[in-house]
């Protein structure tokens, strides 16, 4: 596995500059690349190196850093290696190159990304309403979208549960468990 990874990194670095890699245990290798070379590097991986399978396109909202991270996950059936191609774009004006001429199925992911995160994709086919119907608000998967507030405003709550008691602390006391600090802010 080490040889395959080293060879792949070498080949990628010979063809593209501004690429940095991060190695993980097992059959995974990450490349951090610039958004401009996304179509080129994906085409190169597919045509020249045999990463013919696009497993997934994923989007992460880094609210504090003001960026979206897009992750393309590729798989080679010959080398049995997962390659993550990561890129970061500006959160205020997110624009992404279209890759559905490389993999046709990328179109579905891109349409969903456009709808759920508000990312504009250049020359996207079918850039219209997809999963959400009659959506008026900001894209719902962005982290600054206040989901609970919106649900309360739109769908009402059942009356008669306002005096519901939070029994979590009592349960914790009895079971002698400790709440981790990060979980404390989620309790009511």
């Amino acid at each position: 596995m080490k040889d395959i990874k080293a060879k792949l990194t070498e080949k990628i670095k010979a063809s593209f500059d501004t690429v940095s890699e991060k190695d993980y245990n097992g059959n995974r290798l990450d490349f951090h690349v610039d958004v401009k070379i996304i179509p080129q590097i994906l085409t190169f991986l597919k045509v020249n190196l045999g990463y013919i399978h696009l497993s997934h396109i994923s989007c992460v909202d880094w609210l504090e850093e003001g960026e979206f991270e897009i992750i393309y996950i590729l798989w080679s059936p010959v080398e049995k290696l997962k390659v993550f191609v990561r890129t970061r774009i500006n959160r205020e004006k997110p624009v992404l190159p279209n890759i559905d001429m490389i993999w046709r199925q990328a179109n579905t992911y891109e349409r969903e990304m456009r709808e759920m995160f508000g990312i504009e994709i250049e020359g996207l086919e079918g850039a219209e309403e997809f999963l959400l119907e009659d959506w008026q608000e900001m894209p719902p998967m962005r982290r600054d979208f206040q989901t609970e507030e919106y649900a309360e405003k739109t769908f009402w709550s059942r009356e008669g549960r306002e005096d519901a008691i939070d029994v979590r602390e009592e349960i914790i006391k009895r079971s002698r468990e400790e709440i981790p600090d990060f979980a404390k802010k989620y309790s009511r």
Partner: protein
Amino acid sequence: MINDKNSQKIVDIIQNWARKHSIWVLAYGTGCGAIEIPPTMTSRYDAERLGVRGAATPRQADVLLVTGYLTTKTLKRVIRVYEQMQDPKFVIGFGSCTINGGMYYDSYNTIKLLDKYLPVDVYINGCMPRPEAVLAGFGKLQEIIAEGRANGAQKYKDNLEWYKANQKKIIPSLLTTDYNW
């Protein structure tokens, strides 16, 4: 038919008795609850011995079984299905998602209160309700049909404006037809 109140009462009692023993169910499998329907209908729990059977289309069904959470997108279809059904018709809300949102209480596209959009006759509590609970729910429905209290469809006709306003609040593009029942 003799047009006086007492004889109408007798006719109603006979009608309700007949209706109670022949419930055709349209299981609208919206959420995870749909998985409880096969064991309820088949040999293990055998709902057919109570007169509960599956119907193929909305127009042949008496009961709309809303099994689980409803997204706003599905709600649009459920409303259309409900309006296609012929009288007498009843709605059973199945699982806590239809009662108060259940585990989807803070979701951006899942409704919490089904009775704001459709008139619900019987709620079955639980997440998920077991087939026994489903049968108990059908028993309750039969009870209120026999007593003549299962008048959800009448409620829908009477308060159509209110229901339509609620539906349109979350589905602006709802195609509404002029219903002249």
